[in-house]
């Protein structure tokens, strides 16, 4: 094992292998295996039975699958714009480096480092219909009590609010880093031209931040399509599936009903949807995602 600088250094394989073996075993193989399982009927006990496209046909006709995919679109319509716009505004604020901006940065990011169980339970308590803090203050504004997590009309919104609070930190940090990279002389030039701060924001900051906006939207969209843990903790999909997401339904089918073949088929559909959305989104914003 002498260190050569030639074209092919075998120690490279050894160094990479420690990562690559678990990567192949626990990421790539399950993915391929999952596609196979989707074409079978397989419970926890017994052998797989090839059923062809039956699982996919069933999934496309299953009203609960349709419901879960409809819900994930609704989640995305609330969470993605909510996170992107708020994170952008918060980052602009912290970027000013006014007094106490470091403290504000900490406050905006901290929810991102806690677990879904924390987010879920704290927000179940905040959104409590009778004694929740939110309804209390809405009541002071004359708004009647909202059954945030117990009514089919509101449960998805309730979970989405908690998700925005949880997810925002990542987008916020990415925006903040990007703002620091905008060349100072662009602002100086705009200021000499007499551009107001709002015009500078529109003509300098936003165009410079286009790639990172695209990246944030893509990352948040993918994260939202995989939404599960906060749904599980806050509503468990209830009432009547009004807040259930695709991953939540996959969980139910696999763990509660033990129908692993069917669960795998729904996973494959979700995967295809995520790939489709990512491609469409990239074509629309036509910016390469970094990383």
């Amino acid at each position: 094992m002498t260190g050569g600088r030639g074209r092919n250094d075998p120690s490279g394989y050894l160094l990479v292998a420690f990562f690559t073996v678990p990567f192949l075993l626990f990421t790539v193989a399950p993915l391929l295996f999952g596609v196979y399982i989707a074409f079978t009927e397989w419970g926890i006990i017994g052998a797989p039975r090839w059923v062809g496209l039956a699982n996919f046909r069933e999934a496309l006709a299953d009203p609960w699958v349709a419901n879960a995919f409809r819900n994930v679109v609704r989640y995305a319509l609330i969470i993605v714009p909510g996170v992107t716009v708020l994170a952008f505004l918060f980052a602009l604020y912290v970027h000013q480096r006014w007094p106490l901006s470091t403290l504000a940065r900490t406050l905006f990011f901290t929810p991102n480092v806690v677990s879904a169980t924390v987010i879920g339970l704290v927000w179940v308590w905040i959104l409590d219909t009778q004694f929740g803090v939110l309804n209390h203050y809405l009541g002071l504004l004359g708004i009647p009590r909202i059954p945030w997590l117990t009514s089919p009309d509101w449960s998805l919104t309730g979970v989405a609010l908690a998700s925005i609070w949880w997810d925002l930190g990542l987008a916020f940090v990415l925006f903040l880093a990007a703002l620091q990279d905008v060349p100072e002389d662009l602002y100086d030039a705009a200021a000499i031209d007499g551009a107001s701060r709002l015009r500078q924001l529109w003509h300098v900051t936003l165009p410079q931040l286009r790639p990172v906006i695209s990246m944030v939207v893509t990352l948040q969209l993918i994260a939202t399509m995989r939404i599960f843990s906060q749904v599980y903790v806050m509503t468990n999909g209830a009432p009547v599936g009004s807040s259930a997401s695709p991953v939540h339904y996959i969980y139910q089918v696999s763990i509660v009903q033990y129908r692993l073949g069917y669960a795998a088929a729904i996973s494959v559909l979700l995967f295809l949807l995520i790939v489709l959305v990512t491609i469409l989104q990239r074509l629309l914003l036509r910016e390469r995602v970094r990383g």
Partner: protein
Amino acid sequence: MAEGWRALFRRRLPGTNLTIGDVPLWAAGGFVAILWGLPFVWMVSTSLKPAGQVMTRDVEWLPREVIFDNYIKILTQYPIARWAFNSLVVAGVATALCVLFGAMAGYALARLRFRGRDALFALFLASIMIPIEVAVVPLLLAFIKAGLASTYAALILPTIANVFAVYIFRQFFLTFPAELEEAAIIDGAGRIAIFFRIALPLARAPAIAATVIIFTLNWNNFLWPLLITFDESMKTMPVGIAAFAPVVGTHTQLEGFAVAMAAVTLLCIPSVLLFLLLQKHFLRGISSGAIKA
């Protein structure tokens, strides 16, 4: 006169870059930041209240009297110490392996030439787009059939290959000064020895960033531990405490929100503490990694 006003608005407050005209905006943003932190205040405050003072007509932000009964109850009547131990073992071992393997791979991909290197890195990057949920059902089946359900091995193994770790180390080693390696090569040291003796000890910054970020991810991991543990004593802390959710278990109906808030406060402590102590590493790591692991 108008000029005088404008000049006043543009005057900076001493020692800051805040102008007088900006004060309202500064205060409004500060208000939002405080609002953003309030759920944590409410969580801790509720956890310190006696059961009878939790559901009050008016919102009481601070407890009338501070008691620790809820914490004593959660620590003595629930297996929370066991869950915390499980979480520490799982997140600790997984993070250590993940960072070490990530550093090795990152170094090789940045500094060594071998056939298939770039294709391999492209494969790693492409895999970021794959939602783990697609792999979850087959993994579950495989681990159950292998008789590994509810074991540390099952909880740890699927989390040790994290592309984020590779990426962050590769970025670091791409700009690593070659002279440091060349001297050792002349002395006849092998590449693997160079990695362990020279490169790794100098990679403190990416190592800290990767460790705090990946530890937090592992500590908070939810779906996989939920699926693979059927045994109460093998649950991790987030999954065990999730039974306090009214839709999942009956603890909160029985005990009230004060005990539940004590449980989640304990669950917050490691990741929040780690973040507050190593904030700079954490944030720099995330923005330079720029991929959601």
